[in-house]
């Protein structure tokens, strides 16, 4: 026990030294808690953990990150909304909160908080196993038209990225598939590597290594222009031009605090996060993961969130997958 205690003390002394002296300015006076609404090892977690050290530097304070996953992120967001609005709890979220109202998951979204920074946006690629008979998006659509309801699509549950992409495709074409739900991109890719599903819309960050290694084939990227990281993969608009009206679209990451947080704290945080996101190392991290940084704050961030919500919610409405009509929630048409 004594040994454990000694180890404790030495390690914690080390930790304090690494954290550096905390500035005498008003904020932050103590450690800030960063709540990540997705589990350890996921895309949101990776983004949060890569970004935070740069923000800590700019903020001259320490941010302790905690994962509070569960319920498509509802749990984590709910936790932050019930902590005091003093700027000592920040939320690291993904795009999901913007769909809570339409999916009937919760009655709050980002508009109930203040976005500090919209960090960046990921890209989506529709992938099939390497030995799949489908080589283009047209092949896939044709197969689905010939045999409706027989293709197996990997999904991540209601409100997840694959079902949203499916809804977008269904609002301009018909893609009738069997939706096999997995715990996330990782388990879905694993199932695809074993040929247990036929295709899956994936975040580029999760799929690009598999595509580069030839274990998966990319049929289309959800973009108007081909991507630098995967130049040989066509865009989805080459097969489905109508989907262009939704683009650019992709999952995003954002940092938010409670609405009634004092304005000067919001300003301090915004500045620190802006500096953190602009950091060269972080920029190249995001680029390597097939995403782009946005670094939006203030009104820009709010506009981005509103636009994203209106595009996605109405696409889901026209595909018939929205549980609550966006009209009822007074989400404007794009």
């Amino acid at each position: 026990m004594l040994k454990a205690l000694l180890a404790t003390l030495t390690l914690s002394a080390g930790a304090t030294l690494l954290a550096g002296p905390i500035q005498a300015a008003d904020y932050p006076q103590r450690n800030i808690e960063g709540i990540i609404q997705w589990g350890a090892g996921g895309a949101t977690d990776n983004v949060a953990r890569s970004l935070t050290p740069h923000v800590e530097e700019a903020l001259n304070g320490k941010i302790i990150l905690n994962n509070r996953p569960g319920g498509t992120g509802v749990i984590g967001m709910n936790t932050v909304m019930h902590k005091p609005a003093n700027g000592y709890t920040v939320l690291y979220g993904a795009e999901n909160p913007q769909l809570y109202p339409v999916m009937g998951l919760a009655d709050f979204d980002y508009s109930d908080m203040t976005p500090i920074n919209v960090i960046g946006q990921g890209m989506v690629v529709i992938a099939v196993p390497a030995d799949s008979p489908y080589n283009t998006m047209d092949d896939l659509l044709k197969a689905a038209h010939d045999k409706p309801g027989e293709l197996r699509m990997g999904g991540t549950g209601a409100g997840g990225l694959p079902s949203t992409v499916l809804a977008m495709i269904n609002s301009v074409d018909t893609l009738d598939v069997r939706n096999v739900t997995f715990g996330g991109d990782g388990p879905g890719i694993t199932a695809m590597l074993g040929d247990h599903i036929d295709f899956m819309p994936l975040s580029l960050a999760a799929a690009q290594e598999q595509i580069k290694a030839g274990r998966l084939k990319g049929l289309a990227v959800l973009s108007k222009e081909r991507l630098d990281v995967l130049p040989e993969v066509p865009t989805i608009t080459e097969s489905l031009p109508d989907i262009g009206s939704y683009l650019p679209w992709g999952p995003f990451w954002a940092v938010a605090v409670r609405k009634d947080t004092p304005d000067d704290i919001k300003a301090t945080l915004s500045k620190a996060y802006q500096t953190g996101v602009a950091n060269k190392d972080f920029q190249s991290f995001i680029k390597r993961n097939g995403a782009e940084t946005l670094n939006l704050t203030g009104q820009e961030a709010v506009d981005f969130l509103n636009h994203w919500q209106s595009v996605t919610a109405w696409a889901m409405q026209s595909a018939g997958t929205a549980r609550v009509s966006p009209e009822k929630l007074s989400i404007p048409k794009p």
Partner: protein
Amino acid sequence: MSTSPLKAGERAFNILLLLLSISILVVAYRISGFESVRSPGAFPMFLGCLLVLSMVVIIIGQRHHPRPKTTGHLGETRQFFRTHLPPRFMVFTLMTIGYLLLLTPLGFVPATLLFMFCAIVYLFRGRWVLSALVTVGATAIIYALFTLLFQVYLP
């Protein structure tokens, strides 16, 4: 095959569990009814059926077991409390509940000091100095371990 006498309160407990199982089955049915073979409620309903069935098997299996050697329901209740819920158990459980309730308002360290000291003194029936020493030592170690090393926020 054993036909040892039932423990005091065993039948009541089993019936309670049966009622619990039935209500679980009802709640499971309410999730999605018989919507499809893989509706969210399908597997819970299957488990609910298992609960009810196994409990029925247990209760039927015990119908020939002799009742506990007590006089009537009142006697059985009294014996149940004497053997399974003695005052010491009740007091200790109440102390624990009190501890949980006080954790947030008082904070981790004061609440833990209070709970451990009271509990140890109560269970030891005295020995104030030893209890105090153990309490302070244990609280300090736990606090150091969790907040300093593992950076867990304690209430």
